[in-house]
Structure formats: structure tokens, C-alpha cells
């Protein structure tokens, strides 16, 4: 017998996890929609934010200050990444850019392993995040509420930026037609650096949520979530921002509900079953849940 409280509980978990995937998928989508690069070094931006959190804890800074510093650290790293690694290959093929992003990821991982530690480092997380709230019949972890609230704030802020702000609108214009955007006086350098800053910010917030669940940071911590975010971005429709959110949420739901309701004998096949579901959705909707506009225009 499945009771309502359990479903509600898992719903909260699914939104919390899906929201984190959504933020990461959004970061990948923002950069991809502007310059056609799938940035696999996105995970290392998370790792950098994780280490900033760790360092802040070590020197005794309050968590409320550590979070914005971690997000800023990921933003700066993203902008530096673009300037140093991706600008020289901006007009190269998609494959060249992809390989460049792998190189950036590996170089950073080796640097983390040698300059910080190959092993997982504890990150001090404030106690209140590990407490739970009791609402009616069910218990909900404060860290889940924290994740959901922070995700919602980010999504609303991003939506406002993209629809109300001149620079956000320019970013959407450049994603749709880069040459015509340049004709309007929108500078390629500015809009690409802006896209990276935005993706860094999203990776930084996702890292805070990821680390808050685990209480540790390690050199490879970004790999799994970004792989999941990549799947989510494809599921949603690569390059589409709304699709990235839909894909992230969908993947979060699939994972959490399989973990909760799959019979225990089947649990070891959870990941392949989740991916099979993703493939099934893509068979039905090959361009993803909410395809990017540029792709639609091409098809028309």
C-alpha cells in the first residue's frame, strides 16, 4: 500500500533533485544556445564552488557569506574559462570546442587533485540544513526546502533577466540569429562572456545545493551531476532554456520515483531503467520536450 504522505515526500525530493539538474542543464543550455558549445567543464565550475565553500568553512566565514562567495567563484572561473580556453576556438567546429572542453575539465581535475587533495574534503554545512520540518503527517528536510526555494528564486530571476533586461533579451536574440544580433550592435564578446557568467552562476548555485546534501567536495564531484544535466538538456531539447528546466525536472522525477517505488530486486537496474525511459521519451519527441526555437526555424 502506497500512502499519500510517502508520495508527497518523494514529490519534494523529486523537485529538489530535479531543480538542481534544471539549474545545471540551464547553464549548459545558455552557453550552447549562444555558441554551439557543449561545455563538459561545467562540472568543474561546480567543483570550484564546492572548494570555495570548503575554504570559507575552514576560515570560519558564516554560511550566508560563503554561498555568495562560492557562486561568485564559479562565475569568475566560467568567465576566465571562456577568455582563456574557448575564445581562441570560438569559430572552430563543434567537435573542436567539445574536445577543448574535455581538456579544460581534465586540466582542472588534475590541478584539484595535486593542489588540494585527491580525496574528498569535508565541507562545513550549518546544522539547521540537516534538521527537518514536520508539516501535518509528513516530514521534510530543511535542505530540500532550501534547494526548492533557491531553485525557484534562480528560475524567476533568470526569467526576469531574459525577458525584461536589455542584455537578457540581447542574449536571446543572439541565440536565435547571431549575425543579425551583431548587426544590431550586440557585441559577440560581451554576449558570450555574459552567457558564461550566467552559466557559472547557475553552476555555483547548483554546487551549493549539491554540497549541502553531501557535506563534502572532491576533484571529480562535478562529473556525475553534469552528465545528468547533459542528459536533462537533451531530454528537454538542447539549447532551449525552458526545455532545460523541463528536462531537469523530468529526470529528477524519474530518478526519485524509481528509487522509491521500484521493487528492491530491480533497484540495481535503476539507472538503465531511468535512461531507457529517457530514450523512450526521445523516441516520441526527437527534438526534446520543448525544442529550441532556432531548431524549429531550421525545420520550417
Amino acid at each position, binding site marked *: 500500500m502506497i500512502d499519500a504522505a510517502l508520495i508527497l515526500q518523494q514529490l519534494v525530493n523529486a523537485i529538489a533533485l530535479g531543480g538542481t539538474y534544471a539549474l545545471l542543464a540551464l547553464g549548459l543550455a545558455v552557453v550552447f544556445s549562444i555558441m554551439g558549445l557543449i561545455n563538459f567543464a561545467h562540472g568543474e565550475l561546480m567543483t570550484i564552488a564546492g572548494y570555495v565553500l570548503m575554504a570559507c568553512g575552514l576560515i570560519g566565514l558564516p554560511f550566508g557569506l560563503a554561498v555568495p562567495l562560492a557562486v561568485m567563484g564559479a562565475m569568475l572561473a566560467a568567465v576566465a574559462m571562456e577568455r582563456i580556453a574557448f575564445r581562441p576556438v570560438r569559430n572552430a567546429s563543434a567537435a573542436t570546442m567539445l574536445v577543448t572542453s574535455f581538456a579544460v575539465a581534465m586540466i582542472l581535475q588534475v590541478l584539484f587533485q595535486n593542489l588540494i587533495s585527491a580525496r574528498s574534503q569535508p565541507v562545513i554545512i550549518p546544522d539547521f540544513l540537516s534538521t527537518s520540518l514536520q508539516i501535518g503527517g509528513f516530514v521534510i528536510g530543511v535542505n530540500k526546502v532550501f534547494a526548492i526555494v533557491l531553485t525557484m528564486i534562480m528560475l524567476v530571476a533568470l526569467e526576469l533577466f531574459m525577458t525584461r533586461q536589455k542584455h537578457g533579451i540581447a542574449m536571446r536574440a543572439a541565440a*536565435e*540569429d547571431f549575425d543579425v*544580433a551583431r*548587426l544590431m*550592435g*550586440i*557585441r*559577440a564578446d560581451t554576449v558570450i562572456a555574459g552567457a558564461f557568467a550566467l552559466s557559472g552562476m547557475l553552476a555555483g548555485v547548483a554546487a551549493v545545493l549539491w554540497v549541502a546534501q553531501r557535506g563534502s567536495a572532491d576533484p571529480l564531484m562535478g562529473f556525475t551531476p553534469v552528465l545528468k544535466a547533459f542528459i536533462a538538456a537533451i531530454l528537454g531539447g538542447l539549447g532551449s532554456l525552458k526545455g532545460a528546466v523541463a528536462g531537469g525536472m523530468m529526470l529528477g522525477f524519474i530518478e526519485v520515483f524509481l528509487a522509491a517505488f521500484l521493487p528492491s530486486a530491480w533497484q540495481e537496474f535503476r539507472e538503465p531503467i531511468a535512461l531507457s525511459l529517457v530514450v523512450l521519451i526521445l523516441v516520441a519527441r526527437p527534438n526534446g520536450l520543448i525544442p529550441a*526555437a532556432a531548431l524549429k526555424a531550421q525545420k520550417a
Partner: protein
Amino acid sequence: MRVAPLLELRGLNVRYGAVEAVRGIDIVIERGEIVALLGANGAGKSSTMNTIVGLTPVAGGRVFFDQDDITNRPAELMPQLGLTLAPEGRRVFGTLSVEDNLAMGAYAASDRAAIRDAYERVFDLFPILAERRRQFAGTLSGGQQQMLAIGRALMCSPKLLLLDEPSLGLAPKIVEQVFSLLETLRARDVTLFVVEQNVAQALAIADRAYMMASGRIVDSGPAAAMRDERALEAVYLGHD
């Protein structure tokens, strides 16, 4: 002293790899003119336009605008100079509202009063855009999208507006509207350089025209004279 022309191309060359799309052309456009650039598909007309505004690199020769050498200057800097292109195929931002498309046209402008004036001018020319300002540009009809593409280009208050095939794919009635609009724009001190395959209609409104074939200028002169030449050719050679 002679006033320098608004636009001057000297020996302009454009290549795509081994292919020479434009082979050393000279074009002069004076202030207040409507000049047509005519020719068949693949003659190099669009390459010429894209190269003037910096979207395609100059392989040889020079581009002068308003007494300034702008050869190979990046496209982003053109609106500030007062030079813009309404590209072939309209290319409005379909996922942006009509209003946001216009806002992007004024992206390079910083003077708020000038931007407000530009909106007023565009809405005055195209009342339909004012009516549909909150609609996504992708949902407009072809003719309305062409109005928006021209309106968007006008938002930077250009001295010279390049138009690449403004009548392409439009119904005959809308085509007439577009051509009469070009005359209205000239009356408002916008100099126009127009690529057209619709030769008869282009020559009817242009002051002068250049004819391109295989990357070269093969004929040029006052539009009236070129109209007569065409009529003569039609009589003797049975064209058209």
C-alpha cells in the same frame, strides 16, 4: 570642394575559400539616392551587402563610409556609424516580441529621447507594428515581418540602409507597399541601397542601378537609361 560620397566601394573582392564571389567591383552611392543592385541569383549581390556591413570579410579592395575607411570593421560597430542592413529573408527574432525586436534595433543607441523618437517614427510608418507590439515576431505574416525587419533597421536612425531582397516571397500587393515605402524613406533623408531580383519594379523607384553578373559589375547608370536599354533589348532580343 566635392563632398565625399556616402558609400564607396573600391575594387571590392570577396572570397569563400577558393571561390571568388565578388571580383573587384567599384560602387559609389551619394547622399539621398536610391541605388539598386540587380542581377541573377549567385551574381554576388548578397556577398557585397554582407561585406559592406562586416559580416563577411573583405578579401581585397576598400570600403569607405561617410569619409571613413571601414574596411573589415566588425559588424557590431556599424549601427553607431549610421549604417545597417535589413538582411535577406527578413530574419526577425521570431521568439522575441515585436517591441523587443525593435528594442534590439536600438541596442547601440544610448540616448533615451532618440530611442523614443525612433519608436514613434517606426510606429508612424507601420501602424500594424504598434498594434501587434506584444506579439511574437514569429507569428506575424511575411509582409508584416518585412515591415518589422525594416522597422528594426530604422531604429538605429541610419544614414544608409542596405536592403537585401525586401520583396522576396511577398504577395504582389505587399511588394508595391514595400517599394512605395522605400520612396517614403528617401523623402525622410535615408539613403537606400537595395538588392532586388524584381528588376522592373526596382528600376521604377531607383535613381541609379548597378547590374552584377558572376561577381562583376556588367552595367550601371541612371535607372531611366537602364529601363530604356531593357525595353530596347526586349524588342531586339526578345527578352522578358
